[in-house]
């Protein structure tokens, strides 16, 4: 019975380990100071483990799930999003190169302050959606919930 419990524990540890294999790490955004006028940039730092890749924001096929960062509108609004430059990589499973991102990269959002926003602290929520693979297998799409602290000047 003891050995059954031991193997059951091992199996429970092994299953999530596979799921975590290509999980992205997103650095928690620091407080963003938003000036009264103009555009304020926020750089979201993301990293994927070695050997893993995610589809870029412009995958080559409609069936593939793109990298996508979205922010809810509030005191500031996302005016533009600059995704990292994708690289075209050929994998054992792909007939032709596919558009991917890997390693460490940044997604830059340009925020515009809304006309009615009052000065003071606030926050914004966002979502980063991605779908990662390595050269042999793929992992289900993931959504990372984000919170961006704001200071409106």
């Amino acid at each position: 019975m003891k050995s059954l419990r031991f193997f059951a524990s091992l199996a429970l540890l092994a299953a999530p380990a596979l799921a975590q294999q290509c999980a992205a790490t997103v650095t928690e955004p620091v407080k963003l100071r938003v000036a009264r006028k103009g555009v304020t940039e926020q750089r979201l730092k993301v990293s994927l483990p070695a050997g893993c890749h995610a589809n870029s924001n412009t995958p080559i096929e409609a069936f593939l799930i793109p990298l996508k960062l979205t922010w809810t509108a509030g005191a500031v609004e996302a005016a533009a999003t600059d995704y990292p430059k994708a690289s075209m990589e050929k994998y054992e499973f792909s007939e032709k190169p596919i558009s991917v991102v890997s390693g460490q990269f940044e997604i830059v959002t340009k925020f515009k302050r809304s006309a009615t926003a009052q000065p003071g602290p606030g926050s914004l929520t966002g979502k980063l959606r991605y779908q990662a693979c390595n050269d042999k297998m793929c992992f289900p799409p993931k959504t990372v919930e984000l919170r961006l602290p704001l200071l409106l000047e």
Partner: protein
Amino acid sequence: MKTNLLRVAVAAMALTALGCGQAPAENAPAVSLKPGEKRNPAPDFELTDSNGRKVKLSDYKGKVVLLNFWATWCGPCKLEIPWFVDFEKRYKDQGFAVLGVSMDEDGWEAVKPYIEAKQVNYRVMVATEEVAQKYGGVEALPTTFVIDREGRIVSTHIGLVMKKDYEDEIVTLLR
């Protein structure tokens, strides 16, 4: 809750113990498979196929089954699907069947156009969480189980393997 956790643990343990498929020697007509008495029963399930018909795994007892968990967004799965179409065509009459279980969150909306485009000739279903859990959670795709005529799991392949690896197992089991 504890019972469910234990079930998942035991299922995952059994699947882990089965390991990934062993690559057979080049040109080997047959492979050394896990002995029958060491094979675990494939958990039964009932799902609906793309034509709205019920599919029960236990109805396939007496056949060799290749049970493939896949998704439309999975590149390695896309490579394997034409192999499975070929296996279904060549071995169906010898008592073989491919069953595809999609893990797409968007269900048939994503799956139907895909299987039509790929001219999939075997039965495809959309997974439920319950079915995925019965098979260890299916955390990576493709995940494929080769099941013998008695409904027991012969091998588990997690990730892309060679077409020949599958075919050697199928041919050996059909003998």
